[in-house]
C-alpha cells in the first residue's frame, strides 16, 4: 500500500508546489496583487458590429471612444477577417473603418477595448453649441409652444427647466400637450426632450455611451442629455432626471452624429459584452505603457474573449466549492443527499443571495414534498413522477416569482437560477427517504446538504477567493493536489468521533 501511496504524494505535492510557485512568480515578477484592494477596476468592452449584406461594396465606420471624463483606454483590439481595415482620424474623432468589395452572408466585426477610470473628472469644458429648431407640424408647434411656456413659468433657470422637462416627459400621466407630442413623435424620449430644449433656445445635446454592468452581454448604447446652463455643460439622466455623469457610464460619443455607419449592409446592430476585472494598479500602468504586448496577458484568462471571461469567472469558483464538499464529507463526515448537489444549490445562492436563496429553496422543497405526497397516491411510473415533479417545481417557481413581484419583492425573481431538475430529484429522494427512513433522516440529509451548500456559497462569495481564483487560475493545480491528498486520508471523520463516543467504556 505504501508503494502506491508514494507516487500520489509526489504528484499531489508537485501539483501544489507548481500552483503556488506560479502564483508567487506572478506576484513577485508580474506585479499581480495577492490581495484584492490595491487594484483598479478594469472594464473590458467587446463591441460587436453585426449586419446582413446588401448589394455592392461594404464600408463600415465605427466611431471610436475618445476617453472622456477620466476614462482611459489601455488596450484596443480589432478583429476583421477578410476586410480591409484602417483607423482614421477626422476632426479630432477617430474612426475604425472596415471595407470589402462584396459580401454574401451575415457578418460580425469586433472591436475590443480595455479601459478604466483613472480619475473622476467631469466631461471637459466645451463651448455652447446652439441647436437648430426642429421642423414641426402646425398642431405640434402649438403643443410645443404651450409646453415650453408652462415649463418656463414653473422654472427659475435653465437647469430647473431641464429637470422639470424630464419629470414631465417621464411622468406616468403627462399633461395633454406633452402627451400629444410624445404620441406624434415616433422616437425615444430623449429625442423629444432635445427638441423641446431646442425650441426653448437652450443649448443641449446628447451623450452616448455604455452603462457598465459586469457580465452583461448584448448591452446597447444608452443616451444622457447635456444642457448648457450659461457657463458649463451639465449632464442629466433622461430617465431619472438625476444630474451629473453616473460612475458606471462609459462615454462613447458626445454631441450629434452617428456612432456606426454601415454602407452596403442592412439590419446593422452594435452590441457590447462587458466584464470587469480587478487588476493591480501597477499592472494597469504597465499595460498602458506596453499596450498590446503585455506578455502575461497572452497566457491568462484575460486573453480570452470577454464573454468567455465572464463564464470562467463563475467556473473557476466551482473547484473551491468542490473542495468544501470534499472536506465536509471526508473530514467532517456530513451526509448530503447527492454528492455534488450542494454545489449546484450554492451556485444558485450566488445569484439569489444567501438569505433569499435559503428561503426560496426551503419553500420550494417543502411545497414540492407536499405535492409529491399527492402524486404518490396516483400510482405513477417513476420517470413520469419525476417529470411531474419537475413541472410542479417550475409552476411553483413561476407562482413564487409572480406573487413576490406583485408584492414588490424583486429579489425573489432570481428563483429562476435554481436548477429545476436537481430540485425535482431532491424532492423525490427526500420523499422516498421520508417513507423509508423517517423524518429524522430527511432532516439529517437535507440539513447536511444545506449546510454544505451554505459553506460552499460562503467560500465562493468571498471576494478574496474570487480574486485569487480569477487572477491565479494556476491555484487550481494546488487545489487539485489537496483534493488528491484528501482522497487518501484514512483518519477518522469528525462525525465518527461522535458516533463512537461511548466505545471502550465497557458501558
Amino acid at each position, binding site marked *: *500500500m505504501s508503494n502506491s501511496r508514494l507516487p500520489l504524494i509526489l504528484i499531489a505535492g508537485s501539483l501544489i508546489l507548481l500552483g503556488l510557485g506560479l502564483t508567487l512568480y506572478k506576484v513577485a515578477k508580474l506585479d499581480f496583487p495577492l490581495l484584492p484592494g490595491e487594484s483598479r477596476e478594469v472594464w473590458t468592452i467587446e463591441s460587436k458590429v453585426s449586419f446582413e449584406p446588401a448589394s455592392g461594396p461594404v464600408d463600415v465606420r465605427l466611431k471610436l471612444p475618445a476617453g472622456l471624463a477620466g476614462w482611459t483606454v489601455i488596450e484596443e483590439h480589432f478583429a476583421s477577417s477578410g476586410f480591409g481595415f484602417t483607423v482614421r482620424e477626422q476632426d479630432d474623432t477617430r474612426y475604425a473603418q472596415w471595407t470589402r468589395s462584396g459580401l454574401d452572408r451575415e457578418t460580425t466585426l469586433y472591436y475590443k477595448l480595455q479601459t478604466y477610470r483613472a480619475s473622476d473628472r467631469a466631461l471637459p469644458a466645451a463651448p455652447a453649441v446652439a441647436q437648430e429648431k426642429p421642423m414641426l407640424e402646425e398642431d405640434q408647434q402649438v403643443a410645443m409652444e404651450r409646453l415650453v411656456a408652462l415649463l418656463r413659468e414653473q422654472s427659475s433657470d435653465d437647469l430647473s427647466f431641464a429637470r422639470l422637462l424630464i419629470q414631465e416627459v417621464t411622468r406616468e400621466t403627462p399633461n395633454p400637450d406633452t402627451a400629444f407630442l410624445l404620441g406624434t413623435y415616433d422616437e425615444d424620449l430623449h429625442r423629444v426632450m432635445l427638441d423641446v430644449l431646442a425650441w426653448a433656445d437652450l443649448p443641449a445635446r446628447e451623450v452616448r455611451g455604455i452603462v457598465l454592468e459586469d457580465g452583461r452581454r448584448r448591452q446597447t448604447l444608452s443616451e444622457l442629455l447635456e444642457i448648457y446652463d450659461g457657463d458649463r455643460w451639465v449632464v442629466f439622466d433622461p430617465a431619472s432626471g438625476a444630474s451629473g455623469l453616473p460612475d458606471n457610464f462609459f462615454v462613447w460619443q458626445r454631441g450629434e452624429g452617428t456612432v456606426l455607419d454601415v454602407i452596403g449592409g442592412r439590419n446593422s446592430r452594435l452590441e457590447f459584452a462587458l466584464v470587469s476585472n480587478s487588476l493591480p494598479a501597477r499592472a494597469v500602468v504597465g499595460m498602458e505603457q506596453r499596450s498590446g504586448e503585455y506578455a502575461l496577458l497572452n497566457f491568462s484568462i484575460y486573453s480570452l474573449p470577454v464573454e468567455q471571461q465572464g463564464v470562467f469567472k463563475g467556473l473557476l469558483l466551482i473547484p473551491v466549492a468542490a473542495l468544501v464538499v470534499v472536506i465536509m464529507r471526508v473530514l467532517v463526515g456530513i451526509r448530503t443527499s447527492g454528492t455534488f448537489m450542494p454545489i449546484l444549490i450554492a451556485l444558485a445562492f450566488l445569484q439569489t443571495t444567501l438569505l433569499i436563496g435559503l428561503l426560496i429553496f426551503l419553500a420550494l422543497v417543502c411545497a414540492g414534498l407536499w405535492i409529491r405526497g399527492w402524486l404518490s397516491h396516483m400510482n405513477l411510473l*417513476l420517470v413520469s413522477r419525476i417529470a411531474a415533479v419537475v413541472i410542479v417545481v417550475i409552476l411553483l417557481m413561476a407562482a413564487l416569482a409572480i406573487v413576490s413581484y406583485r408584492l414588490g419583492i424583486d429579489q425573489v425573481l432570481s428563483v429562476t437560477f435554481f436548477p429545476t431538475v436537481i430540485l425535482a430529484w431532491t424532492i423525490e429522494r427526500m420523499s422516498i427517504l421520508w417513507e423509508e427512513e423517517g423524518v429524522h433522516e430527511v432532516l439529517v440529509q437535507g440539513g447536511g446538504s444545506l449546510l454544505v451548500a451554505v459553506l460552499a456559497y460562503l467560500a465562493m462569495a468571498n471576494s478574496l477567493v474570487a480574486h485569487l481564483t480569477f487572477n491565479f487560475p494556476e491555484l487550481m493545480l494546488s487545489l487539485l493536489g489537496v483534493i488528491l491528498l484528501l482522497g487518501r486520508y*484514512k*483518519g*477518522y471523520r469528525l462525525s*465518527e*468521533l461522535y458516533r463512537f*463516543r461511548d*466505545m471502550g467504556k465497557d458501558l
Partner: protein
Amino acid sequence: MRFISPRRLEELGILGMNRRNIGYIGQYNARRNYRLVDDKLQTKRAALEREIPVPELLGVIERQHQIRGMTQQLELLDQGFVIKPAQGSGGKGILVIIRREGDRFIKSSGVEIDAAEIRRHTSNILAGLHSLGGRNDRAMLEALIDFDPCLADYSYEGVPDIRVIAFRGVPVMAMMRCATHVSDGKANLHQGAVGVGLDIATGRSIRAVQFGLLVHNHPDTGANFEELRIPHWDRILDLASSCVDMTGLGYLGADIVLDRQQGPMLLELNARPGLAIQVANQAGLRHRLAIAKQIADETDDHHRKIELARLRFAVG
C-alpha cells in the same frame, strides 16, 4: 455534544469510514467483482452453484408489463413472500408479506395492503427507485423465510439476521441484528434495532446494544440476550468465509438467516459492510483485521483459517 479523542479510537482499533474505503474496500474489492454482490440474482445463482442455501426464488419481474400478470401469480401463492429489488442497497425497497387474507396482503408489521399497492411497489423497483445509482432494475419474488423458532424471541416483526464480516476467507467479526418496535421491523442499528455482538469462537452473545447503550433484554419480547447462542455456528462461519472465494471480494459482509428446515441460509452479500458491527461488539475491527491478514498469509486452507480465527478472536 461529547466526542472521543482520535487517539483513543486509534487505541481501540476502531475502523473509520475513510480507512475502510481506502484500505479495505478499495484495496481488496476489485470493482469488477461488485456486480456479483450488487445484483442479488447473480449472488443467488453463484451461491446455488456452490450449494450454498438461499431463499427460494419464486419469480423475477423484469418489465413493467409483467406486473399485471404478477398479481395472478401472487394469488396462486399460499405462502408468505418477499419482493425486493435485485440491485437494492442498504435493505431499501424490501416488501415482506407474511400471509394473504382474501385479497388483502398482510405485511410483517401487520399492516394490510392490497394488490394495487404491491404493483406500485414493484413498478418503483423496476424504475430503479431503490437501486444503486437509480438505474433500471428487476424485482425478485422470493419465498418468505421460515425462520428458525429458536431465534424468534429475539426479533420483533422482522427476521433476525446474522452479519459476519469476512476478510480474505477469515471470519473477523459477527453480530445479530434484531428488529424492534422502534426500528419498525427493520434491522438497521441506527434506527433502533438491537445489535448483538457474537463471539467468533462459539456464537454466544457478548453484549447487546441499542442506540449505543447496553441492553440485557429485547425491549419488546423481553428475551434475555445473555442466554443467546446461535445454533449451526460452524456452518455459519463456513458459509460466510466461502463467500470470499465465491465473489473474489477480499472484504465483505455476509447476511445470514437461519431457516427452520435448511439451517443457515445466505440472504445477501455486501461489498461495503457498515461499521456499526463495532458498536455491537464494543470492539474495533482494525486489530482483528491485522490478525486476519496474518492468518490469511499463513495458510490457504479454508478450514484452517476458520479454526485459527476462532482461536484468536475468542472472547473471555
